């Protein structure tokens, strides 16, 4: 599929139909909720979801009430990509084009679900796999996951996590799937359009979304989107696509290439209670890393 043809969706051109019902069980300010609402608009009706235990399980509702109009298979924590493969195999047998979507959190993707995910990519399953990364086990009350950044305070890293964030999109990309994209909940229309693109591609499609979580991150509800924007606009969290092995910065990150100076990453860290334990030396080191990374990007893409 061509990368140039797609026209950008705007708030005006976005499908007006709502597939997710209002009044679900998401926390106030939950950005997963925004992603879910917008994501369903991109996916449309002809899809089936496989969902492991996660905040999304809660958002989708307690039996017998469901917060969306989608067929959903709730599955065990480690099995998302495998269960989705089973649904896909059945759709193939039944001659249906129905899009099968696995939608999991960071714990369900980076940690317990990584084995099944890796195998499904290796098999070249025709699936969309979405990981909403709120950078800890939020549904169980904020414990560190493989994608929790270094220094983060969680309920089991009381002095700050000692280890660095696991780069899951890079792990996925190493499998050479059909499509890899990173997104931010602060830019839901970018997510919408990447999802739309993924729908048109055959093979394994992986979308990783930086997903601010007000209670888990120690951020005021009203600032959830602002903090997500700060991560992208400071150059800390990059939005990109990898198609057929070709990497390119996309959407809001692509625009940063021509900016002379990006806002300091310390602004992003300062907005959040979970980073209270970070010292200046660490912040400077992160800033240096980000500066070097962008210098590299400018060399490569300008």
């Amino acid at each position: 599929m061509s990368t140039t043809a797609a026209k950008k969706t705007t708030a005006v051109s976005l499908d007006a139909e709502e597939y997710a019902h209002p009044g679900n069980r998401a926390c106030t300010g939950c950005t997963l909720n925004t992603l879910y609402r917008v994501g369903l608009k991109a996916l449309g009706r002809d899809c089936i979801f496989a969902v492991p235990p996660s905040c999304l399980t809660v958002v989708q509702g307690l039996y017998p009430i469901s917060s969306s109009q989608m067929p959903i298979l709730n599955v065990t924590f480690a099995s998302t990509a495998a269960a989705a493969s089973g649904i896909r195999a059945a759709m193939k047998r039944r001659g249906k084009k129905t899009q099968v979507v696995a939608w999991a959190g960071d714990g369900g993707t980076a940690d317990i679900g990584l084995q099944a995910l890796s195998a499904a990519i290796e098999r070249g399953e025709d699936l969309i796999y979405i990981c909403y990364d709120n950078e800890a086990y939020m549904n169980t009350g904020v414990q560190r996951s493989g994608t929790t950044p270094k220094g983060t305070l969680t309920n089991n890293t009381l002095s700050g996590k000692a280890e660095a964030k696991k780069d899951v999109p890079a792990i996925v990309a190493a499998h050479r799937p059909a499509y890899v994209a990173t997104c931010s909940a602060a830019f839901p229309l970018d997510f919408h359009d990447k999802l739309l693109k993924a729908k048109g591609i055959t093979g394994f499609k992986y979308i990783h979304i930086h997903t601010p979580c007000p209670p888990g991150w120690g951020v005021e509800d009203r600032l959830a989107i602002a903090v997500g924007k700060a991560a992208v606009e400071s150059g800390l969290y990059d939005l990109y696509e990898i198609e057929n092995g070709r990497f390119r910065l996309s959407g809001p990150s692509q625009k940063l290439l021509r900016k002379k100076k990006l806002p300091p990453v310390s602004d992003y860290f300062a907005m959040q209670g979970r980073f209270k334990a970070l010292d200046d030396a660490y912040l400077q080191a992160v800033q240096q890393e980000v500066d070097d990374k962008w210098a590299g990007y400018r060399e490569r893409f300008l």
Partner: protein
Amino acid sequence: MNTIESGNVAAAMAVKLARAEVIAAYPITPQTPLTEKLSEMIDRGELDAEYVAVESEHSALAVCIGAASAGVRPFTATSANGLLYMSEQVHWAAGARLPLVMCVVNRGVGAPWTVWNDHQDAISQRDAGWIQLFVKDHQEIMDTTLKAFRLAEEVSIPVMVCYDGYYLSHTYMPFDAPEQERVDRFLPPFHYAHTLDPSHPENLNSVTMPDTRTDVHGETAPSYMDIRHNLHREMVQAIDRLEAIDAAFRELFGRGGHPLMEPWRCDDAEFVIVAMGTLANQFRDVVERLREQDGIRAGVLAIHLYRPFPNDRVQAALAGVRGVLVYEKALSYGNQGPLYGDVRSALYDCEPRPAVENFIVGLGGAGIRTGELYRTARQACLEIGRQETPDDAPHWVGLGV
């Protein structure tokens, strides 16, 4: 069609005749030749199905769960640690009421590693909510697997067909493979009541509260415990369904008649040996010898349906005998053999209550010599009910040191 093949191939032929459409499997000894055969059948175009070569047993059952939920008949098979690795999914499939069939090629579980046969793997899953059938020869592998698909789909409860690793999986025996056209008459196309379908969306297996809850139309929906109670009730009802399915099978194929348990020389028996799988066949020789050499009127009862346990039928089959000897290849560590506990419990209300003895044999493939079975059974028949204080601790047969 009469043929001579291994037990694993008999199972694969049954799966093909059942027209399974999604096969998901991970290799483990002694199951491997079964799933290799299925992949070969697909590769040669003899079986029209998707083969999903998963990275683990946990994923194998996940694929089956996904496929069945999406309206297609799946199949998987495993053994030993593979079954234990998928245990979470085993419980999930039962709770989700998915009509799955899985062959468990019985093998002892590690540690220490063993690849040889016992029943600990399947027995460890007995409380998961699956129907468990144990078979004792190749014909039974074929016939029971076909019946298992129909049973699973009629009652919407998953079924395990358990057969002894090596004793059956890797030995060759003659058996009849029925014609496809007659199997098609016996086994209707796959049906699952809650198929995932965008035009009729449902949210399956979502979080269910401890109390009942009202849906948007004001109807009361069951609680978790209600849902689990239904599973239990319908599992017990599956005993009658299995008998009806066996009768239908018998009418079409001329075989069957003992879907729950199979008595052999039990009519006049004073002593009955109870066992599962190939062990029950081995005891036929023991029974002959007890009758001929010792004048002991013995019989053997092979339990085919282990879960749901047919309590009243077991009671009826054993009421009035003097002694019951339960030989088994599994153990509830620190207590006794699981089958022994079940049989003893079924006989509690009998008046007079038969004496029941427990023997543990063949763990991890420990040699089971017919002579030793004979000696222990003979001694038990002579002494049973005569001890001052009956001992319900299991007797171990075949220990080396």
